[in-house]
């Protein structure tokens, strides 16, 4: 900004003297170019600093998010909508950074820029400077007149655009269902009518919203026009206004060049409306990351899953877990088998000390984590010191090498998140992986999604593992429960208030 003003001064002096006095002074010209280069360099450095600050803020936000995701109560975290969380993690930190860095910086220059411009003009003609300052209240009055309207309309516009995107997104999401119900033509027409209507509505809103920048354009254009005429009349000696007559050409040129800079920062700020709205939305969405963790009571009850702590605690009161052996948790649906298993494994709460002492646990369920890559990699994932032969052996044992639906043997491709695996395949993979580990194993319905052959393989594997390790299974499978040496039987749940329409 200062660089720009200095260049304007140098250029005005040079051009003014060239035209008026017919002399070319190298000094002001060199000074002007020097100021230009220095100002440009300063602006460039400031831009880079802004970019770095934005990256830092985004990084810090991600780090806070990471800490929260890694540390917060599993139950509470499971209640957050996963899709929204992932979408937000990829976008919100950057939007927040733009709000607190770029947007804040622009707001600061909005205060400083006009002051600098006025300060530069004042020594030449304080009257011209005063005219600019006096134009500001006029501009503010204009803003106030349409301001409320603009804000309201602009919000309405954001909302309309949001709805437009939502309608479209919804139909894309539901596309297979639409095709299955032979409703493509109907939905295409509906989509056309709806997004067409939103587009028209948006236009009527935009026509008002653009008044915002229109006013700023108007003032900066008009300031040039009015100043040019006044300064011209002053030169001709036709006007006796102090501050506008008896100026040298370079002085009036300078005033003319700098005047628009008085309004430019306002305009730049107005253009950042989007960044502001996005940043504010991101800040709201990320609120929970920075909120003080409040575990327990304040959270809403877990969806659908009663937490029969009392029942399981009673069943466990004098149960001592052995260091090795198969323990079966049985009981009717809803008795809290999974809940108990989660507590034992330390997913919810601390877990039991005697179990923690047994080493790193394995968890076997249809939602077991499967890394992308090959089958061999998925089996050996996070298992220390296992060789290829051992991996092949356990894969063979669980029938993963000759699975027609997972061709390729140990090199079979596993998609990100194990998306190409069925529930049964995931279970067998998790069991194979468990066989390579050493700690206790917690299995949630390990045979439920399997055909007879594979269920048998899993049972045998669990029994084999239980010879040297603790294997706890929560199961409905009588055959599996019969193999267990220890039993925890949970009673049927007391009548839990069900949701109005059971899911």
């Amino acid at each position, binding site marked *: 900004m200062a660089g720009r003003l200095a260049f304007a001064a140098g250029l005005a002096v040079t051009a003014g003297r*060239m035209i*008026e006095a017919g002399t070319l002074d190298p000094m002001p010209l060199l000074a002007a170019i020097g100021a230009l280069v220095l100002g*440009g360099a300063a602006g*460039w450095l400031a831009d880079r600093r802004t970019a770095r600050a934005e*990256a830092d803020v985004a990084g810090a936000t991600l780090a806070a998010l*990471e800490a929260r*995701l*890694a*540390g917060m109560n599993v139950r509470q975290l499971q209640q957050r909508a996963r*899709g929204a969380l*992932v*979408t937000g993690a*990829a976008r919100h930190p*950057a939007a927040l950074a733009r709000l607190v860095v770029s947007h804040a910086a622009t707001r600061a220059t909005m205060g400083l820029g006009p002051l600098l411009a006025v300060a530069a003009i004042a020594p030449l003609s304080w009257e011209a400077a005063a005219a600019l300052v006096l134009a500001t209240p006029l501009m503010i009055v204009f803003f106030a007149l349409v301001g409320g309207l603009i804000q309201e309309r602009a919000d309405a516009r954001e909302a309309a655009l949001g709805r437009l995107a939502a309608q479209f997104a919804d*139909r*894309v*999401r539901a596309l*297979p*269902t*639409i*095709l*299955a*119900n*032979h409703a493509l033509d109907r939905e295409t*027409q509906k989509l*056309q009518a709806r997004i*067409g209507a939103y587009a028209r509505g*948006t236009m009527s809103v*935009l026509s008002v919203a*653009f008044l915002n*920048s229109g006013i700023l*354009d108007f003032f900066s*254009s008009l300031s040039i*026009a009015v100043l*040019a005429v006044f300064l*011209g009349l002053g*030169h*001709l*000696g036709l006007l006796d206004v102090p501050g506008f007559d008896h100026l*040298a050409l370079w002085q*009036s040129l300078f005033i*003319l060049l700098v005047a628009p800079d008085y309004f430019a920062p306002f305009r730049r700020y107005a253009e950042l409306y989007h960044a502001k709205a996005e940043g504010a939305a991101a800040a709201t969405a990320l609120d929970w990351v920075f909120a003080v963790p409040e575990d327990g009571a304040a959270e809403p009850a877990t969806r659908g899953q009663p937490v029969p702590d009392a029942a399981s605690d009673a069943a466990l009161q004098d149960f001592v877990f052995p260091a090795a052996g198969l323990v079966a948790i049985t009981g009717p649906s809803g008795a809290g088998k999974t809940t108990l298993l989660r507590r034992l*494994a330390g*997913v919810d709460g601390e877990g039991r000390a005697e179990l923690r002492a047994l080493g790193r646990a394995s*968890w076997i369920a249809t939602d*077991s*984590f*499967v890394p*992308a890559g090959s089958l061999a990699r998925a089996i050996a994932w*996070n298992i220390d010191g296992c060789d290829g032969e051992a991996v092949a052996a356990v894969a063979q044992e669980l029938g993963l090498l000759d699975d*027609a639906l997972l061709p390729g043997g140990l090199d079979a491709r596993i998609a990100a998140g*194990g*998306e190409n695996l*069925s*529930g*049964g395949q995931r279970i067998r993979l998790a069991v194979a992986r468990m066989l390579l580990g050493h700690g206790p194993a917690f299995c949630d319905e390990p045979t439920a999604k399997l*055909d007879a052959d594979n269920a048998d393989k899993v049972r045998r594997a669990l029994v084999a593992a239980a010879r040297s390790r603790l294997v706890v299974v929560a199961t409905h499978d009588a055959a599996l429960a019969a193999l267990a040496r220890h039993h925890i039987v949970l009673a049927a749940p007391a009548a839990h208030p069900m949701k109005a*329409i*059971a*899911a």
Partner: protein
Amino acid sequence: MTDLAHADRIPARSSIRAERSERSASTGRWRLAFFLAGLSLLAAILLTSVSVWFLGAVALAGAGSAAVSFDFHTPGALVRLFAITRTLAKYGERLSGHAAALTDQVALRLTVFSAMANAPATRAAGWQLSREERLADWLEDVEDRDDERLRVQFPAATLAFGFLLLLSATAVISPLACLPVLFFAAIPLILARRGIRRVGEAEASTRAARRTGSAALGAALQALVPLAAEGLRANEIGTALRPLHESARLQRRQSDMLALLDLATGLFGPLAVTAVLLAAWHAGARGEALLPAAFVGFGWLALGEAAGALSKIVLGRVKAKEARAGLVVWTDGGDCAAEAADRSGIFVGRVSLVGLRTATPDGRPIGRPLDLTFQVGRPTALAGISGSGKTTLLKTIAGWLQPAAGAILVDGREVAASGRQGLVHLGLHDAAILSDTVRANLFADGATDAELHAALAAVELADRVEQGGGLDAWLTQDVLSLGEAQRLALARAFLTKAPVILLDEPTEHLDAEQAVRILARLRAHAADRILVYSAHRPPLLGDTIVRL
């Protein structure tokens, strides 16, 4: 029935026609917007130029006796005219440009939607875009593509217009300055070219990193319990977020490159005006003769201000390019057959599978060859564990997937996949609820209210819908529980007129007794149709069971 099919196809054509007429409407608006943009830029340049020329002229006149006779009214009026023109033209340009862009947006979205509907991937495996994070990525692509004309082509064309105009003026008034002006303009242009390449690379990496990170984070959150149990939660979440950190870093590199471009464009206007003035001076122009040079020179200064948008143009172009690459998967599907004619209402006695083997997504056969016949009045349950290919078989019969081998006969005649699509009502296991009314969600446009109510009663949703505000109440996916959504999807099966009803896991999310009640009603209701369903639970007594 062919009449019915024909009637169904007409709206499709009319919608295409509407799309075309909207396109041509947008062309007119774009022209207007371009004209106004040019006018506004011209007025901005002239405002500065004429003001400077005027001040120079009056300063020279004021010194002599010409002061009294100087006509200051004309330039004064011109300056005011340019100021008003610049403001109004800019406002008009914004309105017209956005109107055109919105019109294009409507057309583009419909085109993309139709292309997606026709793409084989839509009917194939699990619908990826039903997942929020994928959908968000994809929508961003559509938006970047929407914006291209408004944010890239349009300002670039306006700037080029202003540049050529001033360059010709410079060539006339001070030809010597053309060379340095071209040189000073070449620097930002070269930087912009390089920027498009390098910012483009960074943008591609950012997108890739964001996608990897999102997928990994989604997977880690899905496996939250196992990871927590195994003590790997912090580890895996950290790994998942690493690409997102990387994408923040890449964005910084992008900003750095654009800052360099901003620096170069910022220098252009001032250097150009200096060059023009010096060239005129060098050519011997003094006093009044310098005024034209000042006129053109300060015009360059005004253009330099407008050129500040160059970095935004580069960024917009890069994003649009990536977005187009992302969308080409859908829009480049060639001329796939449009939706098959809906041939509901005709009678089909039996559907036979002859040596049929379904195929994996990469085309390899699954399981043993199947020889089966499904008959009217003999509902069939496909049983088998998850992953045994029940969904694949149903989709193959429905004509959504190609079999690896064998044939599917309808009443003894082989019918191609597209033909079968029209005969079948396919109840997907992940059927979606549209954000729309209950009525629209039932997909039975010809049905009476009484029929709709009867179907809702059959799936035990009548009370729920009544409480929720009736048939015209607005529904969204999250208003309904999984069980309610499943039953609403089953109500669609009650209302369909298709001769073949295929249902994938219709009892999922329902409690056992309710599932039995609803299926029994459906069996009675569709006694004159072919009914096949898959179930991992024990199916209804009396239904034929096929084990996969």
